[in-house]
């Protein structure tokens, strides 16, 4: 299960990178970036997951002994939430840029924005 | 010997040198004439020319440097005489050693330029284009002559470990086999060749180059100025010959020997001059950079190894 999640995460990252590098359309690049981000999030969650563990809430079920082996690590989960929020912000700003760029040149092809050379 | 006696001998020596220079100049002309099958000038012609020149009634002046030029020239000649031990008498303060202080070779070498530089300045004030051309050629040729000549002088200085002309002459005493001509043949050969340039006769007479650039630096000079320059020229000719005599041909033990040797040395350049036509400046310069320079290098290499 962990392996699958890891593979999924890395695959998403690579697919995202591929999208960023190969697609000309800015929107598609942003989509690629989102995929990249998502892959990252999957990775984060995977890292903190413990097989068969429960939610990291200290209640009677979990008990007070062996906590660490019974519950899933809470930190990555907190991290992923933050990362998702930040990813959202970045994506939103990128889309805003895409809008501005389209307004400027009536084009969403990234190779049209190569005015500053060398 | 008191300073007055020394002064007297020096003045006497200067008088002899001046007259010998005139006579030598006349002889040169005479030889040239006889070579061409002519009768030639009378031997006393230079004195007449001098007399005529200083008796010219109208003179002009282009300015102060116009005066100074011939003065520099004559001072250069006289000074060269003063700094040169003339006749070897066995003592560095002998009768005919003038004010030479043992005759420093470097001093003589650099003082040769004194008259030339002054002449260049004097002629320049005249504003004549040919003066400037003549001087430009002269300086270029001087630089070219200087290189082999310096090498040869250095070689002689290495040979005897001294720059003193007196000591160099002293070392050559006792028979002609002690002359540098035989003891240091490469330096001697260099000097004998480079001497042609220093003497300024054809084919190296492009400074004056008569009828090409009129008469070079002297174009604007007349009358007394010319007379002074003629005198200076005579003295300088003798002194050049004396220098080479002291350096290569064993110096002189008496005035007679001096006169014979300087005449022969002078005759060498006259002889070459009679045979070869004038060089262009670049030919002259490159000529000195060929054989004389090579000989000069050899002369140094032999003594530096």
């Amino acid at each position, binding site marked *: 299960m962990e392996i699958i999640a890891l593979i999924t995460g890395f695959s998403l*990252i690579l697919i995202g*990178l591929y999208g*960023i*590098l190969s697609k000309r359309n800015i929107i598609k*690049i942003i989509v690629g*970036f989102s995929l990249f981000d998502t892959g*990252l999030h999957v990775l*984060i969650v995977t890292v903190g997951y413990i097989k068969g563990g429960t939610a990291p809430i200290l209640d009677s079920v979990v008990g007070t002994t062996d906590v660490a082996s019974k519950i899933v690590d809470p930190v*990555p989960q907190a*991290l992923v939430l*933050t990362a998702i929020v930040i990813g959202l*912000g970045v994506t939103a*700003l990128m889309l805003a*840029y895409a809008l501005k760029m389209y307004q400027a040149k009536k084009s969403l092809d*990234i190779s049209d*924005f*190569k*005015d*500053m050379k*060398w | 010997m008191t300073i007055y006696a020394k002064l007297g001998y020096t003045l006497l020596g200067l008088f002899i040198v001046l007259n010998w220079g005139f006579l030598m100049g006349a002889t040169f002309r005479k030889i040239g004439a006889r070579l061409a099958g002519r009768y030639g000038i009378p031997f006393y012609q230079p004195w007449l020319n001098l007399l005529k020149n200083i008796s010219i009634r109208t003179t*002009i*002046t282009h300015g*102060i*440097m116009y*005066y100074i030029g011939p*003065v520099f020239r004559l*001072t250069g000649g*006289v000074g060269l005489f003063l700094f040169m031990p003339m006749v070897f008498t066995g003592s560095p303060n002998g009768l005919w050693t003038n*004010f030479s202080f043992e005759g420093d070779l*470097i*001093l003589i070498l*650099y*003082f040769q330029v*004194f008259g030339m*530089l002054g002449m*260049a*300045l004097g002629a*320049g004030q005249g*504003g*004549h284009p040919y003066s*400037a051309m003549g*001087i*430009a050629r002269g300086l*270029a040729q001087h*630089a070219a002559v*200087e*290189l082999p000549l310096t*090498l040869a002088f*250095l070689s002689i200085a290495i040979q005897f470990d*001294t*720059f003193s002309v007196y000591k160099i002459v002293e070392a050559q005493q006792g028979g002609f086999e002690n002359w540098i001509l035989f003891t240091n043949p490469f330096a001697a050969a260099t000097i004998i060749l480079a001497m042609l340039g220093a003497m300024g006769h054809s084919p190296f007479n492009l400074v004056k180059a008569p009828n090409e650039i009129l008469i070079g630096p002297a174009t*604007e000079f007349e*009358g*007394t100025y010319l007379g*002074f320059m003629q005198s200076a020229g005579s003295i300088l000719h003798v002194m050049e010959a004396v220098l080479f005599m002291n350096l290569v041909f064993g110096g002189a033990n008496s005035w007679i020997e001096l006169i014979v040797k300087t005449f022969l040395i002078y005759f060498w350049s006259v002889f070459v001059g009679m045979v070869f036509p004038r060089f262009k*400046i*670049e030919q002259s310069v*490159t000529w000195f950079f060929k054989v004389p320079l090579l000989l000069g*290098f050899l002369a*140094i290499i032999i003594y530096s190894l």
Partner: protein
Amino acid sequence: MNLISPIYIVAVSLGIAFFMGLLGNKAQRSSYLILLAALLFNTFVSLQWVFGLGSGLVEAMQVYTAGFKPPFSINLLMGLNESVITALINIVGVLGAIYMMSSLKKNGTGSQVVFLILFMSLNVIVLSRDLFNIFVFLEVGSIALAGLIILQKGTNAISAGFKYMLATGIISGILLIGIIFIYRFTGSLNIDSIITANPILKQGAFVSAFLIIIAIVLELKSFPANGWGLDVYEASHPGIGAILSAASATATYFVLYKIVDIAGSQLNYYISIIGVISFVGSNLLALKQENSKRLLGYSSIGQIGLLMIILGFKDILGENTTYVAFGILVSHYLAKAGLFWLSGIVKQKNIKGWAVIRKKPYFLFLMGTFIFALIGFPPFPSFFAKWTLVMDLVNTGNISWVVAILFGSMMEAVYMIRWFGYAIKGENEDIKDFKIDIYKIIPVGIFAVALYVVGYFVAPHTEVGTAINFIPLYFVAAIFILDFLPVIIKNTLAIVGMILYFYNIYPDLDNMRLIFEAIFMVGGILTLIAGYAYKGKRPGFYPVALLMYAGLTAIIEAQTTLQFFFGWEVMTAGSYFLIIRGKRSMPHGLSYMLFSIGGAYALLTGLGMAHVGHASFSMEILNGISYLPYLAYGLLIVGFLSKTAALGLHIWLPGAHGEAESDVSPMVSAILLKAGVFGIVLTLIGMGASNNQYSELAYALGWLGAITALAGNLMAVFQEDAKRLLAYSSIGQLGYIVLGLAMMTHLGWLGGFSYVINHFLYKAVLFLTIGAVVMRVGTHNMYQMGGLIKRMPLAFIAVMIGIIALSGVPPLSGFAGKWLFYNAILEKGWYFQGAIMFFSGGIAFMYLWRLIHTVFLGQLKDNHRNVKEISIWFLIPIYTLLAGIMVYSMKPQWVLQPLGNMIAKWFPEGQLQWVGETAISQYGQWAGSLVAITIMGSFIIVLVLLMLSTRKAHKVKQFDITYSGERPERPETTHVAYNVFEGLYKAMWPATIPLVEAWWNKITEILHNIADVTRRIYSSNGQVYVAHIVLFIIVSYLVIIGG
């Protein structure tokens, strides 16, 4: 003592940001003020911590969030480093906000909020000790920055911002992966606990640490994966450029500084390598750059690269790391922010367009300050930092690193100085004035002043820096402040100052130093007297002239190598500004500066090598260098030869001296060149003087001197420009001096020193006279002059005596040198060098005659009929110097005897014997004054004779010459002056091909071509930039794994 907790920076910033968001666009004026207040508060907080921690009154403070200790919470640390860095960031924040006032106001409250958030996040990045927190605020910061960019007009800015977003997004992704896995392996996100856990043992943890570090390195825009950064620098508002370069880069660099230990020290070396690649690469590529902001971008990247090198070498540098890094960082921070802000004021895209800055001299001063701070000139902090860096690197045997660093610095100097040259002396004449907003000046001015202040306070922090004598520099500063006064007052002040200073220090100097100090100071005073000839204010002349003299005297006084190098660089800067004042001297000033800097770097390395094995920096360490002595002495000699313009390093001299102002030429020729000679003397003494351990070096130096003499004199012969002729002549004369010193014998040194004094005397006379003549006739070309003896007889006499002295014809003083040289050469056995030297002496006659003939003799030109005699203020120093020449000529023993006694200290063998007035050497004797009297006596007798016999001579005029029956038509066609030595040229032209110049040109061309080809990787395509980043990571990883 309780200080405000740094957490309030975050809290207050966030609170105000929300509050401003509430305000909306309605209250723009008040919202801007609130922003400023918030930034000021941040600054205040940081500064109080700086003072608190700096004075040791308080302990470093840990702030824990949510009451837990790490690793269960996020913690902030406010130590001394953090406080300083945050202070720097916040100061840029305040000043940047002031600078961007109109832009921030126009773009509304939103932009102000974003601005505040940006600085808040930068603060947190610095303070936080939690990796994830750092990541979060890096992202927040980049979002905020992108938000600022997007608010601007212009497609370029927008697309640059998008590329920036994309790139930083990917980089953060990489960072995040690293963070996750390091958490996985160490179970902690706290930097300190990760370092303690020492994760290097596990392979996977190493990869994650690598990913984290490489991401931060990429954030620092490492070469070559930095195209996105360059685009932002180029396109965005200069204020944003300043923030990026000063604040953002500083914060990110500090992050790297914090986290670099998580990989142990395994990655340090690679960080250094990346740093050096960045430093050299981006500085090299900047060579072809013409866009000013992009140029600054390249330079920023280079500087950060340098900082990365320092970080990588922190084990070697030890406790000096902070000092060095801080010196470089602060210089870069102040200078780069200042330059970016300046670019917003000047509003010129192309660096050639910066010529407009000439209209506002004080801005030129600011620009010069920033640029010289960037390339590491004293008294700026970077100078001391670079000095320490090089010393420590050399000390640990990292010579190749020093070479790489200095090469990069050299490239940076090339484009920076060139840029400055365009600004100070561009070719475009019709320049428009530019408008200045007053609020934009304030930050720039503050930063410029800050550079000097910081430099002043940084200097004493090196062990040896305390000894630096700042008194001359105070004087320079005072004169600079008084620059509005007229020449006559400033000149008097300068002269009086120099006299007093000279009077003060001369008792402390030994004989050898006294000679040089006398040349520098007496020569300086005399040449300054000529300055009275100028009218008006002559703005900027006196500070730079005095700066040069301050440097010169510092060299003489130097007790330590640092003082020496300090003085050397001050002198270089001063002389550069002096030279560049000439009308057409821009390219020559540039090449002067580059050769000087190159020489200074050689010197620096040499001094570093001398320091090896010694604890002190005293000048004594030059004696008997033990570490690679041949290389060390060789480098020192090369460094000094760059100033004496030896063949190969001479190409700057003719133009620089020839095009300089009339009274500057003697300063830089007769006086400045002696600084190089002084250095060579020191080096040769260090090489063991009469022991002559390194005779091969001396032998090579001797040949170099001889060939320099020949080449210089030969080139002088074919010059048409009077001042260039003299400049080439200086090259030749310096060749003599070098040859004489290289002989390493008593007579050789005597000759060399005799030449040092002589060259000072006659070259000052000649340059002053010719300079004054040039001022009168308005041209440098000799063929356009002529016959001036009638108009300026006094100048003529000066030149005549000068050239006779120079040519070495007896009886004047030049002959002393020649005589000594002949004897020395015979003694040493260097016959061929000697022959070459004397051949060049023969050549010297040619150009000397030409100088005096074509200028003073021959035909007077029509337009010079009414020119006046040269100014009295020039005549005074000229005739003072002439008196010196005459005394030296008439009584050479007065000079040579003390010199001989002095030299006997190092060369006791083979001294000259003096009997009365006669000098006796092993090979001959020379009675200087008797010879002089004899010659003068016969001269006067002959002169009187001739004057008597031609007393009736008729005075004629210039065309009264025999002209083959014609009359001359014009003076121009009658004056033989142009290409006089054509015949010689035909014979010797192969020797005049400027091979050296061609060689340097070729090298320059190759470097520029490399730069031009390589910089094409920045194709401006966002995807390409992302690919660069990915490739950079892969290649780095492979190299590290492989290495």
